[in-house]
Every structure is written in C-alpha cells, then in structure tokens.
C-alpha cells in the first residue's frame, strides 16, 4: 500500500462491534473519494455501536475531520454510538475543536418560494416605490437646475465640459454611423416599391421628414441611453458603493448639484448638436441611394428643401432636449439609488438603460400628439 492511497475496510472486532478502518491520508482529495463508501459502510453496518479505527491515518485535515464528524452525526441520528479510536493526538486536537452536536440542527435556508398574490403585491409595491423615487429625484433635480440657472457661477463647468466630451463628443462616431446606415437602408427599402410608381424622387421627402422629425432625435437618444446613461449609472453607482457619495454629503456638498446637474447640463448641451449631426448623416445616407439611381444631387437637395421646413428641424431639436434630460437624469438617478455590492451596480445600469428606453418612447409619443394638435 502506498502512502497516497486511502483505503476503507469494514470488519468485526472481538466485542462483536462493527469496525470501519481507515488507512492513509485524509485530505480533501482523498476524503472525497472515500466519503460515499464510508457512509455506505455505516449504513450497511446498521449496528448499535460502531468503531472507526483511524490508527492508520497519517494525515488528516479539515475535510478528514468533516468525514469523522459526519459519521458520528449519522450514527447518532440512527440512535447508535460511534467511537473513534487511534486518532493521533494532533488530529484529535483538531477533532476536539468541533462538537458534532453543534452541526446537528443547522438548516441552510432554501430559496424562498413566493406565492402569486405575494409576488403581485411585491411587484406593485416596487413599481409604486420606483415611481415615487423618480418623482422625488425629478423634484430635486429641478430645484438644483433652477438654482444653477439663477447662479451659473456655482455650476462646475469644468466637470460639465469634460463630461460633454466623454459622454457627448465621443459618442459622435457611433451616432454618425448608425444614422447614416438608417438613412441609407430606409431610402433603399422605400425606393424599391416607389419605383413601380415612378416616384423614387419622393424618397427624398420621406427621408427628410422622417429623419428630422423622428429618427434623428430618436436614434441619438437611444444610442445615448445605451452608452452614456449606462456609464452615468455605473459611475455614480460605484461611487455610492465606495461611500464616495456619503463622503460628499457629509462634506456638505449636495450630490445632486455636484454630480447630477453637471451631467444633465452637459448632455442637454450635447443632445441637440448630436441630433443635428444625426439628421445630416441620415440625409446623406439617403442621398447615396438616390444618386445611385441616377438622380443628380441638386434634385435631391431641392426636394428636401421643398418638403421639410425649419419647424420640422426645430421640433426635432426640442424633442432631443427632452430626450437628453431623460438620458442624463435616469442614468444619474439610478446610479444614486444603487444599493451595496458589485451586483447592485449591474442592476442600476440595467435599470437605467431599460427605463431610459421606456421613457424615451413614451415621451416621443407624447410629442407626436402635441405636435399634431399644434400643427407642427
């Protein structure tokens, strides 16, 4: 027998008691290999008193002790007695640190199964709680924004411009790419059916109106919600977890004024600018299709000037301001609501993006109705 193999055998001693003899090392690897065997041996024995002979154990760590404790527990549960003999003093000392009786009753909580009414109640409460905290936050934000407008010197413009760069300017390439492709794809898809009626040139009208009024602001907002709002939530969330927000409050600095106002202002400045770029790139995307169909560029530009008005452009830009408020506000509010731990930051970021999308779409709908009645 080599020192590396651990063996387990059963037998009967002079007093007629069942003996389980363990020889070799009892470390975490070898113990797991004989664990089941040991339990089976004990069950088979089903004897009132069992002796575990460990004289041949030359190493025993916590896992090995675990095995001995488990054997003792099982035997006691079955109403019998178990004696451990021959354990070396250093391992015995280890064994003495654990009283098997202590491990008898411990229950590990199983995941709690909720019933339907409870789930519904919980969900309703969460939603209500959510709305309330959003309204509270909106109130705080408005107060802070108004005081910022009344006292623009108090705004940390340096931070705001930095955020405008990282959160806004750096988003330009992705927004440009998406707008260009959306314009191109839409023009292409529209040109095919319209060609049957010889009305390809009206693709220009379609592109101009849909981009300026709808797609430019909307695509910009969606990209910003996925990119910048998530970044805000993650950053502020991590600050919350690291107690940086608490530190700020105790220093007498209002986190809303300090962190949120700068971000909201930065994004409010950037959104219309990004939207103008998105509009431009969308229209350029559309032109590619019409040029490839053989129309001169001047015709395309002419059609666009005839069909779209400044009202369309301004309406879209006003909408983009509202979207900017949502994107920055939701990102910051979710970040500030972060609970403790790394996973909470993930939760906040997810919530920021999801509720950002929902609010953007709802707001877009409201604007459509309002513009319709205003005749814009």
């Amino acid at each position, binding site marked *: 027998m080599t020192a590396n193999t651990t063996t387990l055998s059963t037998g009967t001693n002079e007093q007629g008691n069942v003996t389980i003899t363990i020889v070799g090392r009892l*470390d*975490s*690897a070898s*113990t*797991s*290999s004989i*664990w*089941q065997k040991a339990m089976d041996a004990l069950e088979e024995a089903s004897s009132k008193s069992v002796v575990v002979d460990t004289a041949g154990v030359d190493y025993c*760590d*916590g*896992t090995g*002790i*675990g*095995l001995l*404790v*488990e054997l003792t*527990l099982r035997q006691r549960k079955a109403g019998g007695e178990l004696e451990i003999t021959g354990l070396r003093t*250093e391992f015995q*000392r*280890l064994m003495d*640190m*654990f009283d098997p009786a*202590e*491990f008898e009753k*411990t229950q*590990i*909580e199983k995941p709690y199964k909720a019933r339907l009414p409870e789930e519904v109640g919980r969900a309703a409460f969460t939603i209500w709680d959510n709305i309330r905290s959003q309204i509270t936050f909106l109130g705080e934000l408005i107060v802070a924004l108004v005081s910022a407008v009344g006292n623009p010197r108090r705004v940390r413009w340096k931070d705001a411009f930095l955020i405008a760069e990282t959160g806004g300017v750096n988003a330009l390439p992705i927004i440009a790419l998406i707008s260009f492709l959306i314009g191109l794809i839409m023009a292409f898809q529209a040109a095919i059916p319209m060609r049957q009626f010889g009305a390809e040139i009206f693709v220009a009208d379609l592109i101009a109106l849909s981009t300026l009024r709808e797609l430019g602001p909307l695509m910009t907002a969606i990209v910003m919600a996925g990119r910048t709002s998530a970044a805000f939530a993650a950053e502020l969330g991590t600050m919350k977890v690291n107690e940086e927000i608490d530190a700020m409050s105790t220093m007498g600095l209002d986190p809303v004024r300090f962190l949120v106002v700068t971000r909201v202002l930065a994004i409010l400045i950037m959104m219309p600018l990004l939207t103008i770029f998105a509009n431009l790139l969308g229209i350029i995307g559309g032109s590619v299709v019409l040029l490839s169909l053989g129309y001169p560029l001047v015709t395309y530009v002419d059609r666009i000037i005839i069909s779209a008005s400044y009202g369309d452009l301004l309406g879209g830009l006003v909408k983009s301001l509202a979207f900017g408020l949502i994107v920055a506000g939701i990102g910051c509010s979710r970040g500030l609501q972060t*609970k*403790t*731990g*790394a*996973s*909470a930051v993930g939760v906040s970021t997810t919530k920021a993006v999801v509720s950002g999308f929902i609010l953007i779409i709802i707001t877009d709908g409201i604007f459509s109705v309002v513009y319709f009645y205003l005749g814009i």
Partner: protein
Amino acid sequence: MDQIKEPIICVENLTAAYEETVVFDNISFDVCKGEVFVILGGSGCGKSTLMKQMIGLYKPASGKILIDGQDIVSAEGSERLKILAKIGVMYQSGALFGSLTLFENVRLPLEEFTDLNSSAMDLIVQMKLKLVGLKGFENHMPSELSGGMQKRAAIARAMALDPQIIFLDEPSAGLDPITSAELDQLILNLARNLKITFVIVTHELPSIYAVADRVIMLDKRARKIVAEGKPAELRDQSDNEWVRQFFNRKVSSNIP
C-alpha cells in the same frame, strides 16, 4: 515550537520594480512550515507588492518564489493551479462575493475543486464557519456583516480547501481591539493545531507580538530587508535604530 524547521516558501533574489522605480532589490528569505511569518515595513516599502508576488498576482522583475518546491513565477496552466491550490488568500477588505451568501462564498471553492457530495460540502462549510466563529450567519449576505466578520469570513473562504499556506493582508486593520485579539487567537489556533503556515502583512504592533514567530522588515530607502527575527528580540536588541523605533512606536528624529 521544537519540530524540525522545514521551509515551505523560499524567496530567492527577488526584485520588484514599477517602470523605473525599484521597490526592493534582491531580497531572499524562507518561511517555514507551520510558522506565523509577518512582513513589516513603513508605508510604501513594498509589503503588498511582495505579497502579491508571492501569491502569483504580480510578476517580479527577477527572482524566484518557490512554494513547496515549485516556482510560482514561472509556472503556467495546470502547474500554476496546483500551486494555487496550496495557498489561500485573505484580501484587505475581505473581497467576499457580494452576490453570494456567506455559506455560498465558502462553498464555492469546494464546489469547483473537489468531488465531495453536496451534504459533505455543507458540513465542511459549516465547520469552517464555526472555526472562525461565524456559525449562525450562514444565510447572511456579506453586506449585512460588520468589517471584522467579513474578514473572518474571508479567512474561512481562504481555508475552504485546507491550504497549507494562508496569506493575510492587513487582517486586523480597522478592527476593534477585542475583535483583533480574537482574530490573533484564531490565527495561532490554526497555526498550532492545523499546522497551517501564515504569511501576514500588518502594521498592528500588539498583534505582531501576539502571533508572529518571525518577522522581516522592509525599508523603503535601503530597498531591502533590514531586520529579520523574533519581534521581541528586534525591539530590544536590534542594532538598527529605525527598527527599534518601529517596534517602540517612537517618532523618528530625522524626519525630513
């Protein structure tokens, strides 16, 4: 301790450098089996760097670190995993996984690295938590525990696979004196009964006197080990003035 001193960690000619700055240069020492070994030094002397090199997180500029005869610096793949199985690490703030309960935190290494059945794992986790005095907190999330409890839980997790060596980074920093003393007791208990080797980075003088079998002291200016030995001996007999000041908690007379 009168057993034969058998080195389990051998650090040979180790040099650490960040870019051009050399943190320490060509240091060598051994840590023996079952020993409580403390790494000391002023702020910025490279204690944490040294420890992170010993657990294989940082690559040293040059030198060898043999853990139970195998070099952790050059080891890769399965060989490296084999070495890592021999060590357990407690990080300064615990570094428990926030999304798992205490029980699941300690159970995770058992699930990943052993073939134990489920009830066996449950029992062992409870035994480890008992060992660090956290029985009854199985279902708590780490965020629901105090700092001291988190540290003790982190020790339980480091011990889950019964490693031969446990590294502790500032175990008593931020703990109250009583909890800190309890932690010292726990470390001594484990070292004496389980023959676990401890490598500890700490500043706390009382706990150094309480637990350390041997200390080494790193110095920022000399960039090497300036003292090695039993803490009480170093305090009273060291021929290095700075070492005596450190142990006696005296203000340095030549602060620039």
